[in-house]
């Protein structure tokens, strides 16, 4: 059986090397560096297809040296939608990823860049979800969401089916761009949410109905 080809996508050569070592050691796969900058969701998806890549490790922060106008999160979500097992690596807390709530559904696997020894487990998680094996806490249900309060910066949402008393804070701009209209307190909308999430930090909101 031929060796799997796993891509290492990062804006710093030293990090690509680090990811490559982890791919070769822990996944026993061939590490393939990405070489078609700027990296955008489309360009990476096309490259993954052309280069016959079986899985991707991609860093969240890709800004250095104009490597990419997009975040790793946006690219990883697109790759997942195209059924490519993808693990997002980051140096930061997952909950801190700005606007992560809108992408998390398509990001089944995260890996701390300081804990690359866990790559196999995360790659398995990503592969399982690509094949439709979704953990209960990540299953999406169509549900109603209420806007409790809103200002220019952020909107406080309540997902009653998840928790009737916990505010979910999202950026007003991001919410309005998804709803394609201005939001006001009291407004309700439908979206697909993993209402079985263990905590607010693991929650995602997707397929917003405008």
């Amino acid at each position: 059986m031929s060796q799997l080809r796993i891509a290492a996508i990062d804006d710093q050569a030293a990090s690509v090397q680090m990811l490559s070592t982890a791919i070769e050691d822990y996944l026993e796969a061939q590490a393939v560096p990405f070489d078609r900058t700027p990296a955008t969701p489309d360009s990476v998806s096309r490259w993954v297809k052309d280069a016959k890549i079986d899985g991707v490790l991609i860093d969240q922060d890709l800004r250095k040296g104009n490597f990419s106008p997009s975040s790793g999160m946006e690219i990883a979500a697109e790759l997942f939608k195209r059924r490519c097992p993808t693990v997002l690596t980051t140096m930061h807390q997952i909950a801190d990823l700005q606007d992560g709530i809108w992408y998390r559904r398509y990001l089944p696997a995260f890996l701390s860049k300081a804990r690359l020894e866990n790559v196999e487990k995360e790659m398995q998680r990503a592969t399982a979800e690509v094949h439709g094996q979704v953990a209960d806490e990540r299953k999406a249900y169509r549900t109603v969401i209420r806007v409790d309060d809103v200002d220019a910066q952020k909107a406080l949402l309540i997902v009653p089916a998840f928790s009737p008393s916990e505010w979910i804070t999202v950026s007003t701009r991001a919410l309005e761009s998804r709803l394609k209209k201005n939001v006001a307190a009291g407004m309700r909308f439908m979206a697909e949410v993993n209402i079985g999430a263990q905590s607010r930090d693991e929650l995602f909101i997707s397929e917003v109905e405008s």
Partner: protein
Amino acid sequence: MARASLKFASDLLRRLGEELNPSPVNGIIELVKNSYDADAPRCSVTIVQPRTVGGKIVPGHLIIDDLGDGMTEKDFRDGWLILGRSRKSSSVPTRLGRRPVGDKGLGRLSALRMGRKVTVTSRPKKARGTELQLVIDWARFDRSRTPNEVNLNIKTASVPRSTHPGTTIRVDGIERRLEASEIERLNRGVLLVANPFEAAKEPFVVDLTIDPPPRRLLPKVPDLMKSAAFILEGSVATDGTMAASLRDGGGALLATAKPEDLETRFSRYGQDAQPEARMPARFKLWIFLLVTSEFPGGLKDLNAVRGLLQEFGGVHVFLDGVRVAPYGDPNDDWAGMAGMRASNPEYMPQPRTAMGYVTLEDQPGLKQKTDRSGFLESPATEALRAFVRAALSWQSSVRIGFRDNTEQQVRQTGKVEREQISAQLNALFLGLQGTAKDKAHALVKRLGDVSSRQEAVLSREIELYRSLGTAGIAASVFAHESANNSLARIRNNATAVQFRVKKKDKLLAEQTSPLVVRVTEDVDGLLAVSEITLSLVKAKHRKRQRIAVAEVVSSVLDVFRPYLDLNEVTVEHQPLPKDAYILGSRSAVECIVVNLITNAMQAMDLANTSSPTIRLEGEVKGKRAYLSIMDNGPGIKDISLNDIWLPGETTRDEGTGLGLTIVRSSIRDLNGRISAEATSLLGGARFTVVLPLILKD
């Protein structure tokens, strides 16, 4: 071969009218714009709302009447009656130099379909003495299969040549009332249809009458603009070059932007905006300082301007002289002024403190959405937004510069001024006699001493905060750029070495494993410290907002976890309820928890406490959150409980003595209080923080 043609069902007329424009308001505004295009100096809109009398609906009507150039039979046939195609060419100005709006005619369909019958009467300027009339009975269309089956007749009649040209559109049989919000939107729309902020050579006035009269109609934009403190003007030339200038309210030039000032801000505030997508535009913004001292007429004028800003604040957009909704509507802060103010509060105007406009001309590339809710987003609209944001940011920097200059002057002249005042007071005292004179002298001396002491304290605190700020910035840069990536690499390389050794030689792996574990644990501790540093300097954490205390405490503990583990500190946490919210900055709460935890850790470390433990207990009582943090260290010794809050007071040689001073100042910012006990149930010190909650409702 049989001939056939494509036909449209009459039903499509209803769908186009109703579904593409759910509210007839946009349609009415489109008809008003038609009057503008017809060079009318004035247009009146009269709406008689339907009423219910004895359980039956008495239909209402709509009349739009203008004194424009009117329509000839050809204008009717080749323009007005063709829906979806504009006969107007926006590049050819009208007789009065207006640039036609170029409506596709779909918008007006929704207004025309408000009722059962439409009567259009027009007296063309080109054929004085004639009047043309067209009647549309929608019932005939509803009964037909295709619109082509219904013949429409344009009747021509003679009228005296002295009759003024113009067009009257009357829609009868209206059964749906316009809602209050729709009336408000219509009112705003007609007031702003032609740029009311600048005097036009050929003004266009719209009179709106509604029966029954609504509770309130908006006032016309009055001449209050002269009360503005600053006027920001900007432009984009045809080659894309941006320019901006700032004037005072009287029009005197204060500053002019250098091209590079705007270019860098265009990139910074424009996100993905492309410079090459910039289109020619003019931007003008009147910025008000809403304080009575700025208004010669006092509070009355201030309130008038506040009212004006409430209705018209923000940046409106005019394309070819006609407003494009909804830009500048209440809640439509398309330029993101409020957001810029939130992230950069210094001298950044917002819709309730500034109003103005952007004018665009002859931009065929800009397409309006079919439902008339603005332009279709494109690189050009993104670039326009970025230009406006760049100009706003530039004026903010100019005004910050003015403030800094003023402060510098105050610093330089302060001492001289004080000496002058002192001399004047001494001169006054010469007129006093005996004890009164002595008392006055003593009081002035005391005042001087108090001021000097306060100044010395403030100056010391500023120095302390400045050095801490510098240390914080240096630490965060180190944590972000160097420590994080290097530490991650050290850790990954160590685990990779162990992995490879284990594959080759299990016995050797058993020997190297403890060494690798020591490396990874140490690195984890250092990573936690960098994470703490980065977390504490996040700009968004400094914003005043509603925050869930429990969530902030938990996230601080999460970040500290590896560091606590490294020091073998046990944390017992009884969290506050998740919905205990306070108003304040997240960084203030982080500062309190971080300082109290690190103090506890350092005290236990110095005392070599066995089984070091920190206990956090949260509780809500009434409208307050209580958070107590205690440890099993040695407690507070060698310093009085009153002195622990003083800056510079510390029992540790390497301590800054600022931790608790900052904690107390953060708690004051949150309108809370803090108390300390030298010993607690666990044996060590206990600090109890009390914070006022905000109720969810």
